[in-house]
């Protein structure tokens, strides 16, 4: 295993980014803009790089175990996986919402029609 470790500046920058980003996410979650699931998945963008920067020996171990030469490739692979899982769930939710919206729009127009029919019957 290689023993190259990230410099203190790299660790500081990544940790700073992770901290600020997590704070922003937490704020938005508390405001109700994200739910807990969104918070956990989006926070991976901060947690994964921070994990690799703060625990370089663990990063090298993972890259060794997965047979990938560079730990950052493993990190980007993991990030892509998180993004794809998130996209998959968003697409599923979007399609469900589209279906619900379609049904609600139909229902509204049919109820309005029924109301109009009853009003005209009442007038007669």
């Amino acid at each position, binding site marked *: 295993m290689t023993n190259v470790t990230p410099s203190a500046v790299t660790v500081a920058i990544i940790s700073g980014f992770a901290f600020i980003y997590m704070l922003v996410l937490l704020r938005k979650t508390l405001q109700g803009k994200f739910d807990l699931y969104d918070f956990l998945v989006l926070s991976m963008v901060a947690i994964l790089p921070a994990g690799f920067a703060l625990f370089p020996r663990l990063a090298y171990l993972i890259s060794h175990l997965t047979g990938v030469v560079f730990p950052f490739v493993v990190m980007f692979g993991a990030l892509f996986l998180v993004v794809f899982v998130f996209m998959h769930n968003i697409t599923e939710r979007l399609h469900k919402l589209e279906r619900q919206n*379609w049904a609600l*729009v*139909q229902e509204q*127009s049919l109820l*309005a029609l029924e109301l109009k*029919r009853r009003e005209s019957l009442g007038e007669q």
Partner: protein
Amino acid sequence: MTDLATANSRPNPAAPQNAEQLRILLIIPCYNEAASIGAVLAEIARTGRGYHTLVVDDGSTDATSAVAGAHSPVARLPQNLGIGGAVQTGIKYAARNAYDVCIQIDGDGQHDPREIEALLEAHDRGAANLVVGSRFIDNAGFRSTRLRRLGIRLIAFALNKLFAGGHITDPTSGMRLLDRRAIAFFAQRYPMDFPEPISLAWAMRAGLKIDEASVAMRARETGVSSIDGLRTVNYMIRVLGYILLARLARQS
């Protein structure tokens, strides 16, 4: 002109089998068809059959609702859902009001209301749950471009090869009759994309029987088709993909 609006009364719970006694609803999906919908409704009234009608205004920005509303009940969708959403609104209306049969015809004047008889005769003849008005049995009336006809033929070939339940020649026809079973089926689920061919795939997968009746169609009176040129190829590829998906999907 027959007052079609007042003709739409509450349903008779009995379900008569004779074509003369059937409660028939014509579903007319419209999007910005103010220029043609009045003439279509007048033509329907002239048939003298006393069909019940429902115009589904798919979020038009013109006076479609106002023009249609003078002759027929109008279900006005507050936003554009596309042809599938508009047609399913009509089917739900048919299901809730216990119609025996509903027939979809276009609001742009392409479909001659006198051809409805051909669909009803085909329905009377056999036990089909869904009757499609086909332009390609007698090849009468307006003909679309060669590329479109080729695409339609390919889609029909795919449907006939992959599903049992009927032989289809015109899978993209928007003139079709649904009986009670088909109404109940499509009130529950209806394809959002490419509804005409995909609804046939779903119906055949669900075991509904499909028949066709020869009808002549006219060139549209107003507007232009959204499927032309390269879009025809795009349409065809996507429809074939959906048909394959329908074949692979579990029967629901």
